[in-house]
Every structure is written in C-alpha cells, then in structure tokens.
C-alpha cells in the first residue's frame, strides 16, 4: 500500500516539484530518525505531501499523518503516563498542538522527530503540573510490580518498576533519564528536543543517575529483584 502510494508521490514530485514552504525534493535520504521506526525518504515524501495538503485546507491530509504517526507518539507518551486514559489525552494534545503549529514545520528534517519534540514538551509540562508527591511510589507498589520469580521479569513489569522509580525524581532529572532509558536518546537528542544545552543535559544526567542509584539502594531494589550475586 505504502509502496504504491510512494510511486505516485515520486511521480508527483517529478512533475510538480516542491510545494510552497516545503522542500519536497533534495532532502537527505538517511535520517537521524527517532529510534528505528522504519522511517525513510518514501515516508518522508508522504508526510510532506500530506502536510502540504493539510496546509491547503484538506483535513484528510492531517488524518493520514495522524494515522501514520499516532503509534510512535503513543509509545512515547506511554513513558510519561501509564494510565491509558491520560496517555490518550496526551497523544491528543500533541496532535492538536502539532496541527496548529504545522506552518512552522520547515520540512528539512523527519516529521516524527518534530512531532516527538512537541510530545516531549507536552509530557514534561504534564509532569510539572502533577504534584510530585502524588506520583511517588510506595514500597508496596514496587513489591506489587516485581514478579515473584526474579529471572522472569516481564518488560511491562520492568517498565512499571522503572517508571515508578523515575517518578520519585524531580521533573527535569526524570525527563532526562526517561528519554535515555526508555527511548535510548543521546544527550544531544535530548538537548535538541528540549532546547537545552548539551552540557546541561550531561550534568543533569549525571546528577539524576546518582539520585536514582541512591533511591534504588534505599528501596532495596536489587534484593527485591533478586539480582544480588
């Protein structure tokens, strides 16, 4: 389906050239896309065409964009809230914000990277709004998240446990470690997403790791996981 559509797009690009405000041709083929999501130049072309259609008043263009990228954004927002209802609201907020900022997307980078930047800020804002105390985990909750058999730790349980641990950190520290641990982001990518300096992100990461280590030792995480040799 995408391959057929891509062929049509290539034909359109060859005949019509680039649209106003968006560089349809001449973009780099190899992207620094967020994680390995299979994002390539064909999908980028589709994105640019749909954005152009949307800017010309065609809502279906945005609908197609949404369908194409909602899973990736939902995946990221799941790191900010593990409540499905809240996560849905956050994803919705991201796409509504993206719709009204679409004119600011220049088309020189992958669209998902731009979306994830908005998503990270929405998630960060959500954390800042929340009371830190309310989000803190108790020891009982950690016990509930840990499997009775330590070696068979489920990814979902591990994510729950890590999310709970990170929720006890201040929002900026939590954000840096969440993006590092869950999204495998480099310090440079985090700095780009948040418009922070790279030095600041490195410093935060170092301090946050120290805090997390102290917290894990205080809660006896290793004993609970049975990972003490």
């Amino acid at each position: 389906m995408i391959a057929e559509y891509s062929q049509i797009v290539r034909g359109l690009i060859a005949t019509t050239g680039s649209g106003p405000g968006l560089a349809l041709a001449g973009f780099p083929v190899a992207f620094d896309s967020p994680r390995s999501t299979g994002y390539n130049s064909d999908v980028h072309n589709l994105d640019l065409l749909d954005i152009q259609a949307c800017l010309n008043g065609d809502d279906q263009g945005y609908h197609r964009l949404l369908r194409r990228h909602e899973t990736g954004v939902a995946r990221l927002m799941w790191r900010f809230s593990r409540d499905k209802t809240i996560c849905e609201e956050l994803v919705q907020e991201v796409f509504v914000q993206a719709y009204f900022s679409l004119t600011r997307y220049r088309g020189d980078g992958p669209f998902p990277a731009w979306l994830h930047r908005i998503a990270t800020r929405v998630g960060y804002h959500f954390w800042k709004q929340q009371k830190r105390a309310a989000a803190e985990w108790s020891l009982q909750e950690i016990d509930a998240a840990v499997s009775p058999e330590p070696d068979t730790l489920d990814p979902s349980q591990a994510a729950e446990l890590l999310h709970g641990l990170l929720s006890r950190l201040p929002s900026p520290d939590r954000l840096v470690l969440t993006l590092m641990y869950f999204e495998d982001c480099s310090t440079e990518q985090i700095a780009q997403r948040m418009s922070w300096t790279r030095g600041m992100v490195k410093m935060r990461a170092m301090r946050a790791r120290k805090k997390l280590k102290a917290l894990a030792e205080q809660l006896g995480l290793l004993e609970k996981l049975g990972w003490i040799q």
Partner: protein
Amino acid sequence: MDTMKSIEKLAQIARQEEPPEISVSASVMAHIRTFRYSRPAIDVMPVSWVAGISAVAASIILFLAFYAYQSIHDPYMNFFAPIQVAWLW
C-alpha cells in the same frame, strides 16, 4: 550486580515493552473541527464605530483648541504696549 548496572538491565527489558493500542485520530480530527468552527469570527464593526466616534471627537477638540490658541493674549502685553508707543514719540 552493581546498582547502576541493574537499572540499565531493567531499562533494557523495559524498552521491549509494547504500549497498549491507542487510536486518537477520530477524536483529534473532531477536536480540530470543533475548535475551528467554534472559534468566533472577529467582528470589526464595533471597533470601527468606536474608532470613528473617537476621530470625530478628536477633530472637534482640535478645532476648538486651535481657536482657543488664537484668542490667547500675552498677559504682559498691557505693560509693554505703552512703552512701545512712547518710543514712537
């Protein structure tokens, strides 16, 4: 195992988690349409009326001010006028 290594291992396992299926396309499109159509159209008529009335009031004040300025006399003129006449003699 070192605490940080165990956290790294935990993160490695956590990255494999598949989040639940979330589909927001319909609600987002509905939200965008609602926002777009419910946004009140800006009516410039009341602003134009206020601007017009202000302009008329300002021009009346300017007219009156001009004539008032014309009729202002120097209060010292009465003292100096006889001297000037004396020089003529």
